[in-house]
């Protein structure tokens, strides 16, 4: 590139230079380049970097390139275009991770939405021991120890890792849809409720009686609050 410019307005050439600088830096990085670092290196604002990167990404797409510029885990990286997966797969042998099992994905979802969370807490949600799954996920680097529970036992608290974001192609965990979106809709809850109903008439009859006769019920609140799903 020969053209340099001192124009300070958003002339095409100015952004052209920036574009090339961004391309060069992202190209030589092994990891997604943090946007702030990128901005600092090419001496511009984070907003401009975001804009430049969005522009480049659009250009590559429009030109039908075999690679993409994407935002992942808080930074930008080059990656192969999904349309070329068939070719790349033949080439890349190492670094290809096997698919996660359903158990691993569900556990991962619990960690992603509830982090930091202990194994015991995950197990309480899943209803089974999760030691093996947690170990597998740790092993693969998807989750990691993020802290210790200050309470008794000092349980290890887990959270998702940077690698998790990279492997999922996510910019941040907050990009995941709201957990509230997954709360089963009323018909399903009704079906579940129906499935566990032991006597429909009794359910209705027993309700009012409960208040006057038995002050016992509220006691259970303590236990409920410890156990209830905080979805």
């Amino acid at each position, binding site marked *: 590139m020969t053209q340099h410019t001192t124009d300070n307005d958003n002339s095409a050439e100015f952004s052209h230079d920036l574009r090339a600088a961004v391309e060069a830096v992202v190209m030589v990085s092994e990891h997604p380049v943090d946007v702030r670092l990128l901005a600092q290196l090419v001496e511009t604002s984070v907003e401009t970097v975001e804009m430049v990167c969005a522009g480049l990404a659009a250009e590559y797409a429009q030109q039908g390139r075999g690679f993409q510029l994407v935002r992942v885990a808080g930074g930008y990286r080059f990656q192969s275009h999904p349309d070329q*997966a068939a070719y790349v797969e033949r080439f890349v042998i190492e670094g290809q991770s096997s698919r996660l099992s359903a158990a691993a994905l569900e556990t991962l*979802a619990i960690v992603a939405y509830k982090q930091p969370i202990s194994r015991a807490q995950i197990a*309480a*949600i899943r*209803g*089974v021991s999760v030691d093996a799954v947690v170990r597998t996920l740790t092993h693969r680097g998807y989750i990691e120890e993020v802290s210790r529970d200050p309470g008794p036992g000092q349980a290890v608290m887990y959270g998702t890792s940077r690698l998790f974001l990279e492997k999922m192609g996510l910019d941040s965990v907050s990009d995941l849809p709201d957990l509230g979106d997954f709360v*089963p809709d009323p018909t399903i809850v009704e079906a*579940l409720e129906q499935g566990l109903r032991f006597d429909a008439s009794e359910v209705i009859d027993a309700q009012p009686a409960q208040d006057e006769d038995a002050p016992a019920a509220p006691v259970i609140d303590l236990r409920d609050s410890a156990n209830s799903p905080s979805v």
Partner: protein
Amino acid sequence: MSYTVETEVFQGPFDLLLHLILTEELELYDVSLSSIVDRYLVELDRMQHTDLNVATEFLLIAATLVELKARRLLPDDDAFDLDDELALFEERDLLLARLVECKTFKDAASVLRQHSEVARQTYPRVAGVEEAFMHAAPDMLEGIDTQDLKSAFIRAKTPRPEPVLDLYHLSAVTASVDDAVRELVEELPGAGLVRFRDITASLVDRIEIVVRFLALLELFKQGLVDVTQARAFGDIELVWIGGNPEEALHALAIDRYDG
């Protein structure tokens, strides 16, 4: 090995129950508790070679289901114990809540699956900086000597045992509110005005104090103690106003559930 169970069809008692209720019994109002219980037990029987931990979890749910089923089969009985009945309701509600939670995360996991499937189609560039620039890179080995290497090696080779203590089995936290209530019911009547500080003086763990506090709140809610606190962060003073402790205990009927 819990893993074997997971690679079989169901990943846990909730998963199985969800499956039985939702996928097998599509007709909403035809859902039969009876058949769910039967099939649950069949599944449980099928998984006979599982580890005790897993089996216990499944059994706990099975027991609750059987109890629900039994209640349905029994004719209305005047002599039934209301407390038991309510406890059963609670069990059921808790089970329902956990099923809903289980379903929630199952669906959330499907989003992760989609993300990972899409991401699997792409491969990141990892080539890094060209050799020509490496001369400029800071020397990462600066200040590291062979002894550092040796200790790093030993550190890497030293197994890191995972903490064996698993809070999952430590339902003492919930269970001991019950115990704490009983202890307070023994201690407080006749003791006159006491400070919370005094009745927790002998306790070591903070959690024990918390549990005692919860127990105290419980007694307060039941109108068995009177509690005053003159100023913020001041001493909490309590006095037993519940009359006969025996009767009070009977009325309390604290629930235990270690799930």
